[in-house]
């Protein structure tokens, strides 16, 4: 009886244990299946069916090999198991229903009963996520390594003292050393002496945690002793507790950029030198009209040095239109060009210097555009036309003066004509011609000296030349050489003409042996100069006091006394005419 109860209790416990096992088999999270000696699946639990996505009908009863991705793997597994081997975490790949591959680790052994193969029990753990993650990690690592090796910029890792721990080939190419030579070398030893201190100081701050990174331009001394310009970006990698682990130095070769920059600077310097040397006022402004540059000629023309970046539109102090009205700087041709794009040509303006002097100029404002065609500023050339304008004005004065002279001369001719006609109607043409020719010759003399004056000697010789042939050696002149003003010369010339004509017609020169003695001297009195001139005839026919005052006499009296404000005495002595005159000269 007790035994029966015990037996019953034992059976019940066995039945409960079988139920527990079945629950574990079905609902456990580990995948489990049984296969028979031929490899046919006898049973699979829910976890395994869920992992692969099959229903029990699609899975149970089929050969396990159908679900393996690698034939050789399942063959190996079955062979090992058949020979009694136990498998622990054997890696395999299973085919899920949706076509995806699941990575698993299989632990399995065969249940033998009395040496007979009953079945295999296979526990599979899904490791797909782990396998994929590992593969991705490996690929990333390889990629990084490739980048490091193939990069065209130099990358180096360095310790706290700056010794290279690792460098890539590009870093070697930049510095001209091999990777092997570089390892263990300090970056300070490769750096140009002028840049060494700065780089070392910044690196020290990086190591000590006072900065996270820095970027500088520096020079390396290459192995072949040449200098290379680089841009360096240096940063630090720190341990989780914040201590400096190693430095990362990224270096790019900027020699070409430096060369371009230098060429640009050189070309700019040359342009500037050229503009500075140009003997023409040149200045530039930015697009807002602020002066950015001016040359020496511009400062000279303006009479001042404009303030760069402050003065606007024009280098000048004050501006005026040609008519003298004020011209505000922001309305000058340069301002117009910048604001409207209209590059005015041929305009004129007047600038006033701080010292009050004025210059007339013509501006040539021209817009400067950048490579995109946008207005980047403007350049103005100021051509000083003051001298030209002055010459213009002088020419106008000269033309006015010439016009005046011509009109006065015509009035003189009119007078000579009228009076000649009155006094000698019978010999009008002859006397008129003589007088006009004499006047014309006096003009010739004056023109030769540009109306600045005339020598007394040459004036007298000219007047007497018409009578040279018949009276050779009969006019005896004595006196110092003397320059008379144009006006005095012209007036005295006319008076002399009347005297010689009279002498030739009626006086001493009308007789074969008559002579004229002409002498002059200059006397200085109280700063004023007076010329005394005596005309003395002798050897001619007896002279009588004339009954009337002819034109000739009137003209002599008029020009000497009135026009030249001189003194004149005419003595009609029987031996000959004596004319004494005294004229102020300059």
């Amino acid at each position, binding site marked *: 009886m007790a035994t029966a109860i015990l037996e019953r209790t034992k059976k019940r416990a066995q039945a409960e244990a079988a139920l527990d096992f079945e629950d574990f088999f079905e609902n456990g999270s580990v995948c489990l299946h049984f296969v028979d000696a031929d490899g046919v699946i006898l049973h699979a639990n829910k976890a395994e069916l869920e992992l692969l996505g099959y229903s029990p009908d699609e899975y149970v009863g089929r050969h396990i090999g159908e679900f393996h991705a690698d034939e050789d793997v399942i063959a190996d597994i079955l062979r090992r198991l058949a020979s009694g081997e136990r498998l622990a975490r054997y890696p395999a790949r299973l085919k899920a229903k949706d076509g995806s591959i699941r990575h698993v680790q299989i632990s399995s052994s065969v249940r033998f009963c009395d040496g007979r193969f009953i079945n295999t029990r296979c526990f599979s753990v899904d490791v797909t996520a782990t396998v994929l993650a590992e593969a991705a990690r490996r690929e990333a690592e390889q990629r990084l390594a490739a980048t490091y090796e193939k990069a065209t910029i130099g990358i180096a890792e360095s310790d706290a003292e700056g010794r290279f721990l690792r460098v890539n080939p590009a870093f070697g190419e930049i510095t001209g050393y091999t990777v092997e030579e570089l390892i263990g070398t300090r970056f300070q030893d490769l750096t140009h002496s002028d840049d060494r201190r700065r780089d070392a100081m910044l690196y020290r701050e990086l190591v000590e945690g006072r900065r996270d990174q820095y970027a500088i331009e520096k020079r390396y001394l290459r192995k072949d002793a040449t200098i290379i310009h680089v841009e360096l970006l240096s940063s630090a990698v720190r341990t989780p507790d914040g201590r400096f682990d190693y430095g990362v130095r990224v270096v790019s070769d900027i020699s070409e950029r430096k060369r371009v920059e230098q060429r640009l600077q050189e070309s700019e310097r040359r342009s500037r030198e050229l503009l500075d040397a140009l003997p023409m006022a040149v200045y530039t402004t930015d697009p807002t009209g602020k002066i950015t540059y001016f040359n020496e000629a511009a400062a000279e023309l303006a009479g001042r040095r404009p303030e760069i970046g402050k003065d606007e539109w024009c280098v000048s102090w004050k501006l005026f239109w040609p008519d003298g009205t004020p011209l505000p700087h922001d309305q000058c041709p340069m301002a117009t060009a910048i604001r409207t794009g209209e590059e005015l040509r041929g305009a004129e303006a007047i600038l006033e210097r701080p010292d009050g002097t004025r210059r007339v100029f013509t501006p040539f404002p021209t817009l400067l555009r950048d490579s995109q065609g946008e207005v980047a500023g403007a350049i103005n050339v100021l051509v000083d036309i003051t001298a030209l304008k002055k010459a213009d004005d002088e020419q106008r004065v000269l033309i*006015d003066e010439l*016009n*005046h*002279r*011509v*009109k*006065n001369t*015509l*009035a*003189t*001719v*009119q*007078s*000579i004509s*009228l*009076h000649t006609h009155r006094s000698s109607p019978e010999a009008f043409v002859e006397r008129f011609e003589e007088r006009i020719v004499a006047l014309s010759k006096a003009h010739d003399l004056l023109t030769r000296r540009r109306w600045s004056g005339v020598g007394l000697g040459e004036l007298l010789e000219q007047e007497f030349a018409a009578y040279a042939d018949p009276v050779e050696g009969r006019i005896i002149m004595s006196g110092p050489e003397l320059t008379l003003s144009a*006006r005095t010369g012209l*007036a005295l010339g*006319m008076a002399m003409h009347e005297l010689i004509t009279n002498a030739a017609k009626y006086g001493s020169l009308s007789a074969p042996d008559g002579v004229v003695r002409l002498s002059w001297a200059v006397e200085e009195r109280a700063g004023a100069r007076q010329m005394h001139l005596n005309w003395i005839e002798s050897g001619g026919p007896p002279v009588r006091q004339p009954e009337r005052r002819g034109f000739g006499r*009137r*003209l002599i009296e*008029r*020009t000497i006394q*009135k*026009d030249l*404000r001189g003194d004149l005495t005419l003595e009609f002595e029987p031996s000959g005419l004596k004319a004494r005159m005294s004229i102020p000269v300059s």
Partner: protein
Amino acid sequence: VEDEGPVAMLIEDMLDELGCRVVASAASVAEALSHVAQDEFDVALLDINVAGERIDPVAAALQSQGIPIIFASGYGTAGLQQDWEDFPILQKPFRLQQLKELLSASQAPGSA
């Protein structure tokens, strides 16, 4: 007032012919000014540029006395200051008839 002898003689003769009496004939500004101060006359004939000097002081003195002025010049109106623009001007050389007309216009008693 005329600084060139032959021209002065011509004008004097023309005035004589027109029945005028030449009270004074001057060849410089200073001389002219002294005549304006001392002499009495009905009309003045003035060259504009006299021996390098401008006639303006003489014209101003005459104007203040209300004496009619006729300008005679080779410059024409161009050489004249704005103050004298409204006065009659003879362009040298001129004819007797032109002088006569201007004298009549100036209502100088001698020209009547």
